[in-house]
């Protein structure tokens, strides 16, 4: 490295100039809002009450109210149910789909692309599509049920089925993601393993459970964690399909925070709800990073 001192200095200057604008902008449009959110969460800020935005007399009031707010506690449960079932179905169905499409054939490789459509559609269009399917007057689903003489309740306005209806739509939208991840993992499995097992007389189920599954387990876990983190973003589905109802059976925390801020004008309290949600998401995110690092270390 001797004799490169001048080049190094010039390089460092370039790096600084190249990085500085991004860092400044990131701080301004992501860092400052985050700080402001924390500040707001310490006030009883209501839009109709201007002085309230700078009232720090009881900074932890919002946070103290949270555990006793049945709607908040309920929203966490709703989110937990939506996340659990959604992630479970997405991982299982994504894996099955990947196994089905993991084969060498021009036709199949071409077809794979079409399986990705639900994931790339604008989330609001996905919500519109499922609104169609859940609206009895115009839904093909209700038509088919009618032909088969099955009495279909109105799914999105039923206490028993509304959350299931959202989970089904969420699974449809995001199953392609786990499919894509698992397919990528399947393609890294060396042929020799299953070839050797075949020679030894193993059947397909044995190959799956003893060779394929151990190989793809890390990616199943990681893609599940990704989906878990992103499952708080199911906003368009809740917004369009149920509006959080009936009652509050589909009111996830994200949606409750939205209502608090933009329907009830409770900005301060909504900020506190959001911070708790954010902390939960960050905790899960760290889990993903930690697992990703561990996996890299193992390889």
């Amino acid at each position, binding site marked *: 490295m001797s004799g490169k001192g001048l080049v190094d200095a010039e390089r460092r200057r370039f790096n600084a100039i190249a990085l500085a604008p991004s860092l400044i902008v990131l701080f301004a449009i992501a860092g400052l809002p985050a700080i402001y959110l924390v500040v707001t969460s310490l006030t009883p800020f209501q839009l109709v009450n201007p002085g309230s935005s700078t009232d720090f007399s009881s900074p932890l009031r919002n946070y103290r109210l949270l555990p006793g707010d049945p709607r908040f506690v309920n929203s966490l449960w709703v989110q937990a149910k939506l996340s659990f079932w959604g992630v479970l179905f997405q991982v299982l169905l994504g894996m099955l*789909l990947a196994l089905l499409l993991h084969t060498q054939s021009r036709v199949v490789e071409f077809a794979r692309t079409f399986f990705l459509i639900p994931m790339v559609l604008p989330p609001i269009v996905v919500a519109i599509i499922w609104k169609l*399917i859940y609206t009895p007057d115009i839904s093909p689903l209700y038509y088919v049920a009618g032909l088969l003489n099955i009495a279909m309740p109105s799914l999105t306005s039923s206490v028993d089925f509304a959350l299931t209806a959202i989970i089904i739509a969420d699974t449809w939208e995001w199953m392609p993601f786990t499919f894509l991840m698992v397919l990528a993992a399947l393609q890294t499995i060396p042929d020799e393993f299953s070839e050797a097992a075949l020679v030894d007389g193993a059947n397909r189920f044995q190959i799956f459970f003893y060779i394929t599954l151990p190989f793809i387990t890390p990616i199943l876990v990681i893609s599940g964690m990704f989906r878990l983190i992103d499952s708080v973003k199911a906003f*368009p589905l809740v917004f369009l399909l149920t509006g959080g109802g009936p009652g509050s059976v589909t009111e996830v925390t994200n949606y409750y925070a939205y209502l608090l801020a933009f329907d009830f004008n409770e900005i301060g309290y909504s900020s506190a709800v959001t911070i708790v949600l954010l902390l939960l998401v960050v905790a899960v995110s760290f889990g993903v990073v930690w697992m990703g690092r561990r996996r890299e270390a193992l390889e």
Partner: protein
Amino acid sequence: MTGGTGGPIRRSASVRRLAAIGVTLIVLLSPFLWLLQMSFKSNDLILQFPPPLIFTPTLENYASLWQGAFPASFVNSLMSASFSTALALVLGVPAAYALSRWAGRGKHALSFAILVTRMAPPIAFTIPFFLFYRWIGLLDTVTGLVLVYTSFNLPLVIWMMQPFFETVPRSLEEAALVDGAPTRVVFLEIVLPMVAPGIAATAILCFLYAWNDFFFALILTRTNARTAPVAVVNFMNYEGWEWGKIAAGGSLVMAPVLVFSLAVRRYLVSGLTAGAVKG
């Protein structure tokens, strides 16, 4: 991500497998196809029971969209998505290059920033942005949308572009540097042309993220800067649901997405998972 080198056992797809794939594909895509066919039906046909599967398609829904405020919202979507993509690229591409060539401590700090902005629920940004915008008059402006979309596109650019820069051989750059070319010239004239495909893929993903947004546009716009996704939802109003318009508008909103995402499907996973595992 697809098409890895250590492929599966060489066996061609059996007829049974192909049939299973075909059926699965039809089942999976039928909700999407239902919206599409509805967009070509007149309102009488849409409400007809049983739904006719064979009908004479009409463009009247699209024509009625053309007459209303929808084209303006489409232009708002185009502008906010394009400008935020451009801004994120201009800022993020040099930053990604600097990061890929510099193993300093800042790398981890930035990775962390990326992680949080990607993972945070959108509501965490909406409340502060809404209050700021109300204060400085950026509510219901395309500029306001561009800024908020840049907040999630910039981290995406920085994260997605680094691996592309890693593929450029250092020996090329070093030769030019030894010849006395400043880093800026090496970057602009040697490195950038080599990563052009990566920039294109990243740009498309940024565009899609901004284009697909519903939440920010719902809260931060009213009429002037209303985007197409919000405009479509506004066809669901109290006077009745204009299903024909909803289907046609929805189809138009998803059209660019379908075209673009086919173009970048190789990068979809890395784009969607930006900033997490490699953090």
